[in-house]
């Protein structure tokens, strides 16, 4: 196996203004209080763990009134130093974009925009694997965004329909581990999406319902280290059998807003060469 070519440099945003101030996914409940000190400590431990594993972390300045800015995975999609700004579905998160764009523009990235009217929530819904971006749609991103996104990223984008509103972003259902393996949550995709992933991932590890709902797939991979919000024994045994070091970082304060380890990070070093993996077979009546 060959380790992922990306995942050594991340953008993160300290949780100074984090909280559950609105409800835009089934996990968010405004009556649940966030323990900010605890959130700060958990976030700090995540940073330390990533750095220990060999990654560097860039910081985005937190902004009052933008509690979800902490989930930098949704800031946009990056490939080869080009940054495609997100277009958020919910108005609560739309003001984040100006701050994201300012950071990327100030750090040497080429900033590009999706056409107006095409919603896409960044790396939260677009993860690279074997030369292709898989892109979740329906809950937050539009299926129609994948064409323009592909053109802007210079890489193929294959949209996958997310059918479980609890798993509203792709990064809650899919975690690339190396060049052949990934944690996958087929239960969160429609039958077409399952076929697409099946054709793309040579060695998938399929998560059970409770495992995917525990945000198992929302993990960050740095070389051979998998940083997970939770690691059920069955998943841990498989990852260790494959030679990964598993580190669990408790981020339960952030789970209150529906985000785990991956949501708190955005890989800045993605550089997909533009060669796609094999397309799925067109069986079961899908062929025309």
């Amino acid at each position, binding site marked *: 196996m060959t380790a992922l070519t990306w995942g050594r440099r991340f953008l993160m945003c300290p949780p100074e203004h984090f909280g559950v101030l609105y409800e835009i996914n089934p996990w968010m409940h405004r009556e649940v209080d966030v323990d900010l000190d605890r959130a700060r400590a958990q976030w700090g431990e995540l940073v330390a763990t990533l750095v220990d594993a060999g990654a560097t972390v860039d910081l985005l300045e937190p902004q009052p009134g933008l509690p979800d800015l902490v989930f930098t995975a949704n800031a946009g999609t990056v490939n080869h130093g080009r940054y495609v700004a997100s277009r958020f579905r919910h108005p609560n998160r739309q003001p984040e974009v100006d701050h994201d764009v300012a950071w990327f523009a100030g750090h040497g990235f080429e900033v590009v925009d999706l056409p107006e009217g095409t919603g896409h929530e960044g790396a939260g819904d677009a993860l690279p694997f074997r030369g*292709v971006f898989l892109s979740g*749609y*329906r809950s937050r991103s*539009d*299926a*129609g*965004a*994948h*064409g323009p996104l*592909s*053109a802007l990223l210079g*890489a*193929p*984008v*294959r*949209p*996958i*329909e997310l059918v479980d509103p609890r798993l509203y972003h792709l990064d809650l259902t899919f975690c690339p581990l190396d060049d052949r393996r990934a944690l996958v949550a087929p239960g969160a995709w*429609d039958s*077409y*999406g399952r*076929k*697409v992933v099946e054709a793309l991932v040579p060695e998938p590890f399929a998560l059970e319902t409770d495992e995917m709902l525990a945000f198992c797939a929302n993990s960050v991979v740095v070389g051979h280290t998998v940083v997970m919000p939770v690691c059920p024994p069955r998943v841990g045994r498989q990852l260790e059998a494959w030679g990964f070091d598993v580190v669990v970082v408790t981020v339960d304060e952030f789970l209150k807003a529906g985000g785990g380890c991956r949501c708190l990070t955005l890989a800045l070093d993605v550089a997909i060469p*533009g*060669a*796609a993996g094999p*397309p*799925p077979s*067109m069986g079961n*009546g*899908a*062929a*025309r």
Partner: protein
Amino acid sequence: MSASEVVEVEGHIIDSLILAKVLDVIVDAGADYRMFDVQIGHTNTDASRARIEVTAADDGTLAALVAELQIHGANRVAQVDAATAPAEVDGVLPAGFYATTNLPTQVRVGGHWVDVDNPEMDCSLVVLPDGRARTVPMHRVRAGDPVVVGRDGVRVQPLDRPRGASPFEFMSSDVSSEKPKEQLVARVAERIRAAKAAGGRVLVVCGPAVIHTGAGPAVADLVRAGVIDVLFAGNGFATHDIESNVLGTSLGVPLGDGQPPEGGHSNHLRVINEVRRRGSIAAAVADGYITGGVMFECVGHQVPFVLGGSVRDDGPLPDVFTDVVAAADAMRAELPGVTVALMLASTLHAIATGNVLPAGVETYCVDINQAVVTKLADRGSHQALGIVTDVGLFLHMLAQHLV
């Protein structure tokens, strides 16, 4: 009333199975689709694009379906009225004119899709002052006529896949000599009866071989019995029909014993000359010169016929159109109401007829030569069902069924 919209889906729609999914969603909703403007990327990094016309039973079903398709990235394409440009001079179309097919066609005028009155291939579309649209052959366009240009705002409907007791069903290959003829003839007879019961008209297009093979009396019987409503042919067919009635020969060969008499080669010329002397076939019938045969029955039963001329015609008979453009126009004038066409041992007249027939007309092409049948289809008359057999045998059997 069915309703339709055009949606467009693009990106990596093949590898992501999005296209397959969109089509499945359409079919699952009980709607139908037609794909056009499909561009498939050459490599798996190239994007692909497809425009899909979605047709549902009613507006409500369509609206719900289009909303669902949008979720999967298939967006409604704004539809525009057909663009028109005025013909600058008589008989010349504006550049970029829309060239028609023989399929049912609709044109979007003033925000509404209107049916084209008379589908015909290789013509232009002219929008009439009252908002209707009709096909107009090139030579009949007049300066100032608003002619549809470009493809926007025009759509054609593929013919329904035949269902039920259609003869197309028992013919899996379109043209074959390997079919049981008895059964074929019986089914064609059944279709003709059904067409007539539904008020349709039956057109036959006859080549001279109909007379040479001795099938003239069978065709005459069909005319007399009211089965045939209109006849297209050339100088040869009509001449040999009259020759066989007046002199008992076809191109000089007696239909009885087949022994050519001396000077028989000029028989047809003498017949043509006598008809010309009388001014028309009808006049020759009235005068008692022609006393039987196909043309005689047509005159007697007021079955209209169009005889189209060609450059090698002898005579020709006075009824023959020597102006091919006028001949085609005369044929067009006889088409309204025609729902079944029989092309009988005729190559040139069958193709000429195929050119002016809408695709919805059930067409049977009977010829001993498979190439004739294939040729007709290759010229765009895809609806033609070929029956490879001797036309004489075919007509005798058909007359037995219908007379």
